[in-house]
């Protein structure tokens, strides 16, 4: 049996072995079967054509299993793939919200199957497979994995590429301080895992922090039933099961969560949240990144409300309509100075390097003649313009 350059089983012919074990083609009259595939995995030709004999062995395109008996889908390990539509049937669990290429989470091989293939359902590859830490891994060349390493879920023998810089969008492997044992989901599909947990994504989720300050923030949610050995301690109690799976944290004011909680080496709860996407680089981390992570999870899991389904950005002020002040805070560029307004009620964020630029969260002026001014809104002074955006609770949003 022979394969093509993507590893697909394409030709099967009968051979004979001589006494030494050498292989020879059988008589030329013996049948030779062929399969051929398009780059997207569709079978070429009809079953009896010279091009395609519909081989009856289990492995086909990419040398992977196709569920021909029922769905016709190709099992690409982390996900099923539909060669008919050239798309996966579930989203990429390693989708990177900071990378626009990954916003189409159902695409196959960067929509470039001539160059890439994706046997794992997790990353596109161009080269050879290799054993990494005793596990066969594809040489991922994907935007999901900016460090050029394959995403790993069994990380017991996988060292972080370097000490993660949690607060600057570094990749999310937790540090090993304190002799920590790091755990991860056995199932490589984070999404499936989350779904199986029935993840809480709203304010009704239970808080998970151990420090009072963290609990008071009311903004830290967790996956019910999840357990986490975030440092070197065995966590137990309500909500913590013995199963060694990842826990994630995110919220509005959780950068201090790590302090005194034993998680400081990981940069706080938010950093743990980043860890939930192994190998992923969301481009954000720390408290700011955690909010984006929350929105992303809400969106891809379909648990969020309409507002949460929007990827908010200061570069697109329209995307900030209906945001909460907490949402805005998470978007404020690092290094900007926060101070209360000198009049009215609200907060001003100033770019210290360019004082003319300011972002103000106005709590609203009850009784204002302009409805926009009567409720919470955002004022952005930047690039020669002043723009106001209604925030959650502003009556303009109800019009």
């Amino acid at each position, binding site marked *: 049996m022979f394969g093509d350059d993507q590893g697909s089983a394409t030709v099967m012919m009968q051979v004979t072995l001589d006494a030494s074990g050498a292989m020879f083609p059988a008589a030329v009259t013996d049948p030779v079967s062929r399969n051929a595939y398009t780059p997207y995995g569709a079978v070429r030709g009809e079953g009896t054509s010279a091009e395609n004999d519909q081989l009856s062995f289990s492995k086909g395109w990419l040398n992977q299993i196709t569920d021909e008996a029922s769905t016709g889908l190709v099992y690409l390990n982390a996900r099923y793939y539909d060669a008919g539509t050239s798309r996966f049937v579930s989203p990429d669990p390693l989708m990177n919200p900071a990378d626009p290429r990954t916003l189409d989470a159902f695409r196959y091989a960067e929509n470039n199957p001539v160059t890439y293939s994706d046997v794992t359902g997790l990353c596109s590859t161009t080269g050879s497979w290799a054993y990494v830490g005793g596990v066969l891994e594809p040489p991922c060349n994907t935007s999901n994995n900016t460090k050029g390493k394959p995403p790993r879920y069994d990380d017991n023998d996988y060292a972080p590429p370097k000490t993660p810089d949690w607060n600057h969008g570094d990749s999310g492997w937790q540090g090993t301080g304190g002799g920590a044992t790091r755990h991860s989901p056995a199932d490589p599909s984070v999404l499936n895992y989350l779904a199986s947990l029935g993840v809480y994504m709203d304010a009704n989720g239970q808080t998970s922090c151990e420090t009072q300050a963290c609990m008071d923030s009311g903004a830290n949610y967790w996956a019910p039933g999840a357990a986490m050995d975030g440092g070197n301690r065995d966590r137990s109690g309500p909500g913590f099961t013995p199963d060694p799976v990842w826990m994630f944290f995110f919220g509005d004011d959780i950068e201090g969560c790590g302090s005194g909680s034993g998680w400081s080496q990981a940069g706080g709860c938010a950093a743990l949240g980043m860890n939930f996407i192994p190998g992923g680089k969301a481009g954000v981390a720390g408290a700011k990144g955690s909010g984006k992570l929350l929105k992303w999870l809400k969106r891809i899991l379909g648990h969020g409300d309409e507002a949460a389904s929007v990827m908010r950005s200061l570069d697109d002020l329209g995307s900030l309509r209906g945001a909460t002040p907490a949402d805005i805070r998470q978007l404020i560029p690092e290094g900007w100075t926060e101070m209360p307004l000198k009049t009215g009620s609200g907060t001003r964020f100033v770019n210290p390097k360019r*004082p003319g630029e300011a972002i103000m969260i106005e709590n609203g002026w009850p009784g204002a003649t302009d409805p926009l001014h009567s409720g919470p809104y955002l004022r952005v002074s930047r690039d020669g313009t002043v723009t*106001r955006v209604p925030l959650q609770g502003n009556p303009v949003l109800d019009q």
Partner: protein
Amino acid sequence: MMNEDERAILWLAIEDFSGLWETVWQLRSLGPDVDDEVLAQRARNAVAHLLRSGWVDVYRCDEPYGELSLISTDEAVVSLDQPSAWDEPQAGRVSLRIGATENGREAYAQSPDFLHHDSP
């Protein structure tokens, strides 16, 4: 009475102590196709009118957004004529900002709404 420019700028001064450069930016947001020179002149005229009406005061501010000190109306009138007073400030420099007076707040509340469309 106040015109639309003056009302928009007065609101800037009610929201917080806003910089003179922001008054130009505000008018640009309302009329993005208007020439910059025209916008600057309109902003100067509007602020001068608000100042003369006793609806705003002018303050010096240590940037970024530091201490504020009220300056007299006479001094403010002179300062408004200096083109550099309308430039976006540099860190560590002194800027001019406007803040609404109580009379200014009342005048705003009693003025007609021109239905600004400055939000996305």
